[in-house]
């Protein structure tokens, strides 16, 4: 009789594992398998990994895709560009989100929930539509340039569209809430008497912020950084729509390999390597977080 609730509990624990196995592990294993295959013309556009020769099973693993990807500068640059864009936009978002979250956390409870609502509002419309909106703002004859020309700040339209600047604007705009919310959650849960204690012990407002509030908010900062840095590396829509040909990020590279070149094995190899690159910062964040006290 005692094993019954135990069984139920185990089944409950099993749910997330089954979920991850179906929706994460299986697709990844498929991609890994394709990355170890080679191109052929046909459908599917890659050689099967194994074949039966009579009663013998023959498995052919092809590592050439990885060797090719690692040896080509194009891919290396795409990885580096992605890392650079992710790092810079994460820093930009932190610089904007922290003061924003701090401001909201210091408002009265009533206006707080309204301001948090405003942060989330953009999610109510499709991201694609919002990026298109940015295109019409940033175009040479777009809203921004018309306004600046009309006011007379500039005499020639600024070229923002199809540059790296446009990518940063688009990415920072799209991902900012993911940075604001964890920092806000952390700051608003903070104990206000700690600030008073710091003030009582001789800290000015500024000193109390740097010695108490900021170090205690680092968990929120780390969570926010992880939430934006990792997806931005693989970002496809924003660089594709707002960026120029000179900024080749890895998401676009994978797309080109899959759909333009129809080279699924190489595209898969690029994807597997991206995952390896991403796993490193995730593990770093995780170990950092588990070490810092709550």
């Amino acid at each position: 009789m005692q094993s019954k609730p135990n069984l139920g509990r185990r089944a409950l624990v099993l749910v997330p594992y089954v979920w991850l196995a179906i929706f994460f592990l299986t697709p990844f294993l498929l991609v890994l398998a394709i990355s170890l295959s080679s191109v052929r013309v046909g459908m599917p556009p890659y050689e099967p990994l194994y074949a039966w020769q009579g009663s013998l099973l023959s498995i052919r693993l092809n590592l050439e895709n990885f060797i090719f990807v690692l040896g080509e500068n194009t891919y290396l640059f795409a990885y580096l560009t992605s890392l650079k864009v992710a790092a810079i936009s994460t820093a930009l978002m932190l610089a904007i989100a922290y003061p924003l979250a701090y401001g909201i956390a210091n408002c009265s409870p009533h206006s707080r929930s309204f301001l948090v609502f405003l942060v989330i509002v953009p999610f109510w419309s499709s991201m694609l539509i919002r990026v298109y909106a940015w295109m019409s703002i940033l175009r040479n004859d777009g809203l921004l340039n018309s306004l600046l020309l009309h006011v007379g700040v500039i005499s020639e339209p600024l070229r923002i569209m199809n540059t790296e600047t446009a990518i940063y604007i688009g990415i920072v705009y799209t991902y900012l809430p993911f940075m604001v919310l964890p920092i806000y959650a952390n700051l608003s849960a903070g104990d206000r008497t700690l600030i008073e204690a710091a003030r009582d012990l001789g800290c000015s407002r500024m000193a109390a912020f740097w010695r108490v509030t900021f170090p205690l908010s680092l968990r929120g900062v780390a969570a926010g950084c992880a939430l934006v840095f990792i997806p931005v590396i693989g970002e496809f829509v924003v660089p594709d729509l707002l960026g120029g040909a000179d900024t080749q990020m890895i998401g676009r590279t994978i797309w080109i390999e899959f759909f333009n070149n129809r080279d699924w094995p190489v595209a898969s190899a690029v994807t597997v390597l991206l995952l390896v690159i991403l796993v490193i910062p995730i593990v770093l964040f995780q170990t950092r977080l588990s070490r810092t006290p709550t």
Partner: protein
Amino acid sequence: MQSYVSIENLSKSFGFFTAVDDVSIGIGKGEFFSLLGPSGCGKSTLLRMIAGFEAPTAGIVRLDGADVTAVPAHRRATNMMFQSYALFPHLSVGKNIAFGLQQDRLARGEIRQRVCEVAEKLQLSALLDRKPQQLSGGQRQRVALARALVKRPKVLLLDEPLGALDKNLRTETQYELVRLQRELGLTFIIVTHDQHEAMTVSSRIAIMRQGKVLQVGSPAEVYETPVSRYVAKFLGEANVFEGVAARRSGNELTIESAEAGGSVFAAATDNVSTSGRFWVSVRPERVELNKQGSGLEGVVEQFSYAGSGRHYRVRLKSGAMLDALRINLGSQDDLSVGDTVFASWMPRAARLLAE
């Protein structure tokens, strides 16, 4: 004598609510002073104005002669021990204690020396590398105390410092606080709602209610000579009966009380007029209960054995209740529920109250 901490006509309003209402108190150097009152009486707000966390709506705070009303908290020579302790969770015990000294930019050697000194005094030396969340409640309380004391403040402010401790540790810590305060010769101002705690630790107590100070005095003064029924009942227990008429003979008053159902005695006083409304107050431990004799007649309705004493509730003939406490000296109990008793007391055991 010039007061070391001087609160002059201090008021604080939050919107339409007046938390502190025209309070004036002088506190001497080296005093252990208590602000005592129920929650919401304004005692914490008063303490926070002394610390500099709240700006008074009106009035002046003087510290060692100087007007500090406009001086912000971080520049005041006061330190506060918070009710929640407010220890910094990201810093070790040692760094928590050193926090204020680092902010004052003292030399490393001096900081270390002072931290070690105070840690030793409060038995924290072995815990300096721990984080606050690894400590017990009593240990946290001592760290909070050490962190405030290490700055050698002119005045240490303690906001319900023992509220989170269990009863036994609480009593022990009360004596520890008093010993520490004497040893250091510092001025302590403590906020508490626990009258027993205030009586145990303080040299003087200010009893507050609804933003006003009702009475200031030593524990004995406020207990023996309360100024009002409220003070008498707030500090310990008191039987209070309204009087109708009084006759004076020498140092004694004989008072007719319809509420008590007879005449009762009290010490004569010139401070209270017996022409208007007045009351008599007598402490339960001063009430004598006898099976025969004179006094107020009543029936024992309830009895509780409290270890150090036996508590009787007597229903008087007038219908009023009278509490009496017999100190437990080991003698046999000769009263039980339902017995008819006569309650009396020495005239000097009772006080006349004007309000």
